[in-house]
Every structure is written in C-alpha cells, then in structure tokens.
C-alpha cells in the first residue's frame, strides 16, 4: 500500500516536472463543468462542445501555431468541488483560462478565487451577479435573466395583459428569475397577483396553479429548469386555466415540450436563437454560426444541440479570438483583449465587451418563441405597433 502510494507520488512529480516542457508547445485551457449530477443537462453538452471545438482547432494547426490542451474537470454541480478544481487548475496546471462552471452557484463560489489569482474565468452560467458588479477577470456567455424578464413583460404589454401569477422553483435559477420579475414588474405596469415558490422535485402542482388561477391572474410566468416546468403547464390546462402561459429561457429544450404534449401548445418564452436556427432569415448575422454549430454537434454526437452547449461554444470562441487579437498567451494581454472584443458572433448573440460589460450581450440576444404543433417557432414580434 505504502509502496503503491509512493509510486503514485513519484508518478505525479514526474508529470508536474514534465508539464513545463509541454507548456511551451500548448495553450492550457481548464474547464469546470457539471458533466454528471443534477445539472448534467448543462455540463454534458458543454463538455462535448469543448472537446469537439478543441479537436477541430488542433486539427487546423491550433491558434497561432500552438495547440490547445483542454483539461475538463467534472464538478457534478457541487460548488465545493468546483472550488478545489479551480485552485488545482490555477496553481498546479497553470491554465491560461478556465471555462465554466455550468451553474451560477458554482461560479459565485470561485469568482473571488479567480479574481485573486488573476485567472481568466469565462462562466457558462446565467445569473447576473456573476458580472454585476464587474470583476476584472470574470466573464460570462449566457444571456441576462433581466433581459428575459423584460422580453416577457414587453410581450405581456403587447398582448394587453397586466396581471401575472408568478411560479418559480426553489433553485438558484428560480430565485434569480423571481427577483428580477419582482424588481422589474412595476416599471412595466405589471401587477403580480400571486407569487409562489415550489420544490424543484415537485411531482404535481395542481394545488399551486389552482391558487394562481383563483388570484385572477391573466398570465402565468413560470421560472424553473426542472421537469416541473412541464408539470406546471399541464396542471394549469387541466384545471381549466385559459390565460397565456410564459416560461423562462430554461424551457429551451424540446424534451420539455414533448413531456407536456398538447398542454404546451401556445406557451411563449424567450430563448437564444439556436433553437430556431433553420427558420431565421438569411440576413440574421448569427444564422451561419448557429447552423454550423448545430450541424457539427448533431452529426458528431447524434444528439440534439442545446443552447447550453452553445454557451461553452461562445466561451471558447471568445477565448480564441482574444488570443489571436492579443497575439500572445500572456494572461494580462488576453484579458485586456477580451474586454476589447466587439461584434463577435456567437450562438447566444453578438458579443460586444467593454470594461463595464463582461457579458457583452444585449436584449436582442433573446428571441420570443412560441410552441406550435409540438415545435418551437419564432413569435411574430410585437414591434409593429411601435412604428409611428
């Protein structure tokens, strides 16, 4: 046993000693992703996307002639694991940048670590707190919750609906959405008549939607990423709720539509354009990027591409663009280069970074989608009325 352990230590030392020799040749990029565990629907496509991209970049000769060495760590969505992996990647592997983590909770846990160690962190998680307040070395690729809420409220106004029943799950995602809804509702003249939080593992929500219906809500806004979002619409229709149902951008997975079946018809929600890539007009700047990513991913993994994998795509894209722009692999230079990136077309939208904006996306990154005949379709924009 002891001999075995000593051998392991020896082996490890050798590997660490050997690492600097390799580092001259390659650019080391770390990734902390929830490949398994409760958030595996985020982490698994993200990890696959990164592997696919790195393979592709290296096949083409790398960036500026250096190949990328990708080190993926599976955090299982645990903030504690994410923290120890972050330290390991920064101190032992000495990576240029870390992509991920997949969830907001994990990202917040390592935000200060990355900041102190001056390590570039490009998160694939959604919460606004990741980049607000701005931390010098921390960036994120998914769209803002705030923008999703604004999109929904604008749609409600266009449909002349003002009474909303809000349902959210007791997760970080649900909580962040609920806060934004509460904060922004008065600005848009939306009255919240019911505001209920349910357990993320809920199996039936008839009582909850009954309460919302009894409150006189004209529309239901549900904010969650679990199967519960399918249960909500099903139960609401079963008890005879006739109003409009809105979902968050967490609904952007066709599985949830399939699960809710007929009840999902007419549900409106904001989402990245990846889901409707094929139906976008040719003039859309993102169309080519989206279709390429979708085609590559789906032909390689025989699995439907999701917006979540797209967040990792964007993170890697931004990093490679920044390295090219900085024309160096110096951490400071690359970081400064990211802040100066403009008009980078990714899957989530067109990124325009600045010293104040470490997300770089505006509200146009979201498209309002509607479920029609079991498929996602672009909702005709309510803009027509605004033209005077």
């Amino acid at each position, binding site marked *: 046993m002891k001999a075995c352990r000593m051998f392991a230590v020896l082996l490890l030392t050798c590997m660490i000693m050997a690492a600097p020799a390799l580092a001259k040749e390659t650019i080391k990029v770390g990734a902390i992703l929830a490949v398994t565990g409760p958030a595996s629907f985020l982490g698994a496509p993200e990890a696959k996307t990164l592997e696919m991209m790195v393979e592709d970049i290296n096949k083409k000769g790398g960036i500026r002639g250096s190949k990328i060495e990708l080190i993926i760590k599976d955090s299982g969505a645990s903030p504690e694991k994410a923290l120890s992996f972050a330290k390991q990647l920064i101190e032992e592997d000495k990576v240029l940048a870390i992509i991920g983590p997949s969830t907001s909770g994990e990202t917040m846990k390592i935000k200060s670590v990355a900041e102190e160690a001056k390590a570039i962190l490009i998160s694939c998680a959604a919460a606004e707190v990741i980049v607000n307040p701005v931390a010098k070395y921390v960036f994120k690729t998914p769209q803002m919750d705030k923008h999703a809420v604004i999109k929904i409220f604008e749609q409600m106004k266009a449909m002349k609906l003002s009474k909303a029943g809000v349902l959210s799950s007791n997760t970080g995602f649900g909580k962040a959405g609920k806060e934004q809804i509460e904060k922004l509702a008065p600005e848009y003249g939306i009255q919240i008549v019911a505001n209920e939080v349910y357990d993320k*593992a809920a199996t039936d929500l008839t009582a909850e939607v009954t309460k919302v219906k009894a409150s006189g809500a004209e529309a239901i806004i549900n904010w969650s990423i679990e199967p519960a979002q399918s249960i909500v619409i099903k139960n609401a229709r079963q*008890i005879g709720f006739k109003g409009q149902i809105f979902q968050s951008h967490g609904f952007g997975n066709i599985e949830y539509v399939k699960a809710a079946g*007929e009840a999902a018809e007419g549900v409106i929600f904001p989402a990245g354009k990846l889901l409707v890539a094929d139906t976008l007009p040719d003039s859309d700047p993102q169309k080519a990027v989206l279709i390429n990513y979708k085609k590559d991913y789906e032909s390689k993994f025989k699995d439907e591409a999701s917006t979540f994998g797209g967040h990792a795509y964007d993170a890697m894209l931004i990093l490679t663009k920044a390295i090219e722009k900085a024309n160096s692999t110096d951490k400071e230079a690359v970081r400064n280069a990211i802040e100066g990136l403009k008009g980078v077309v990714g899957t989530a939208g067109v990124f325009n970074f600045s010293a104040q904006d470490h997300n770089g996306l505006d509200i146009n990154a979201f498209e309002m989608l509607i479920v029609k005949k079991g498929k996602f379709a672009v909702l005709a924009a309510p803009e027509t009325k605004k033209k005077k």
Partner: protein
Amino acid sequence: MNIELFFQYLAAGVTYGTIYAIVAIGFNIIYNTTGIINFAQGEFVMLGGMTAVTLHAFLPLPAAILSAVIITMIIGALIEITFIRWLTSPSVLRMIIITIGISIFIREAALHIWGEAVRALPYFTGTEVTVISAGDVHISPQVLWVIGISAVTVVLLTFFFNYTLLGRQMRACSSNRDAARLCGISAKNMVTLSFVLSAGIGALAGCVVSPITYVQYDSGTGLAIKGFTVAILGGLGNSTAAIAAGLILGILESFSVWVMPTAFKDVVSISILLLILFVRPSGIFGSVEASRLKEF
C-alpha cells in the same frame, strides 16, 4: 373560498395522495417479510417508468408496461440474490445501509443508460389536457387510473398475504424468521420473493404515475421520501392503511397551499412524519402492541 375551489383543492390532494400511496405499498411488502425498509424502492419506481417508456417505442402500451414490470422484477431478484441473499443473519441496520447503496447504484446506472432527459408514458386515456369536469372542478383521468390500480393492487395483496400459503409463509418470516425456518419455510426464498413482488409493484407504480409526474434518472428519490412518509403514517406493513394515509397526507398538503405559501408544502409532510414518529411510531392505523414486538 368558494365551494368549487374547495373541491379543486380536494381533487389536487387526491392526486398527490394516490401517487404517494402506490409508492408506499411497495415499501410495505419488503417490510412484511424482512422487517426492513428498502430504500431502493423509489429506484424500482423509476426503473419501471424508464423501462416502460423505452419499450413503448416498439410495443403497444399494455405490453410495454407488462414487460417493464417483469424486467424490473428480474432486476429486483438479481439485486437481492447478489447483495442480500448470501448474508448470514444480517442486522437491520446493515440491510438498510445495503439498500441505500443499491439505490445510489441504480440511480447512477440509470444516468448512464438513459441520460438526464425527462420522459413520460402517454396518458392511458385521452391526452395531457383531457379532464373529467364537474362544474369548475377538474381531475385528470390518469388520477382515476392510479386510484383504480392502487385499489386492485391492495385487494390482491391482502388476499395474497392472508389467504394463500405463499403469502402466509412470507408473513411468517417477518414475524419470526427462526420459527418460520423451523417450520420448513425457506426464509431466503421468501425474501427474494418479496423483493421481486415489491419491485414489480414499484415498477407498476412508476408506469401509472409517469404521465403525471414524469420520470427521470433521479425521480425515484423524491417519490420514495413521500412514499416512506405515507407508509410510516399508515403503519408499516399495512397496505390498505397506506392508501388512507396517502390520501390524508395528499389532501393536507393540498390545503396547506391554500393557507400558506406553497414553499411550505413539504414542511407539512415532514412535520407530520416527525409527529407520528414521536407520538405514535406504529402509525395511525397500526397496532401499538404489534409494533412493540418488532425489531424495527
């Protein structure tokens, strides 16, 4: 609160209650023969639902459900034979820890086989939006299916445990294993049989509730907690009481939503579980004298 709203909450409560009850029945069978709680019961429910969904791609619904139940029964038997059968007089605690281990194992295996996607069987009658309405009170026909199947299961089980030789042998093992063995009953076979039976009933439960609750690799855990609460509430080992207890808990939860923020719904069920464990550990319908004689 008007009368229609009252009945709508009641209907919601009945829906919750029957789901919990059908899961609770599975707990009772293994308890009846071995005197332990099988913490992998929720995973049997998940396996049943997942297998049925997979098979439904090739088979008509009734055949898919039947095959899923049989497959899960085989898995139940294999698990018992591999992990439990060879133990000589294991302690209750050891068996419980083994079942917890099995539950984690099945969950992870399911994640690798099926991924993290959410699945569901189609509704047995009608679609997602079909409802049976009385005035402004609506209930999904699937709920009636769950109630019907729970009722039939309980009747059959009661008959099996009270009137057939095999059923009585299983009960004898629970009451006193050594005495049962002296009477020529193969205690080991009875334990295997109880795992098979409860795996089958768990799988059946997984199939009937999956249109309502959906099924995912980790959905067994949540169902098992509620099922466990209901089994304790009714008195361990008593399946008829489990149905009554399930309905009580479901209706209480549903009405708690009316008076309190919904976030407190689970507080209600957990408080009831704790209260019962402190005040009346034998359950509402259980016999105090009988429970004193049991090891666990």
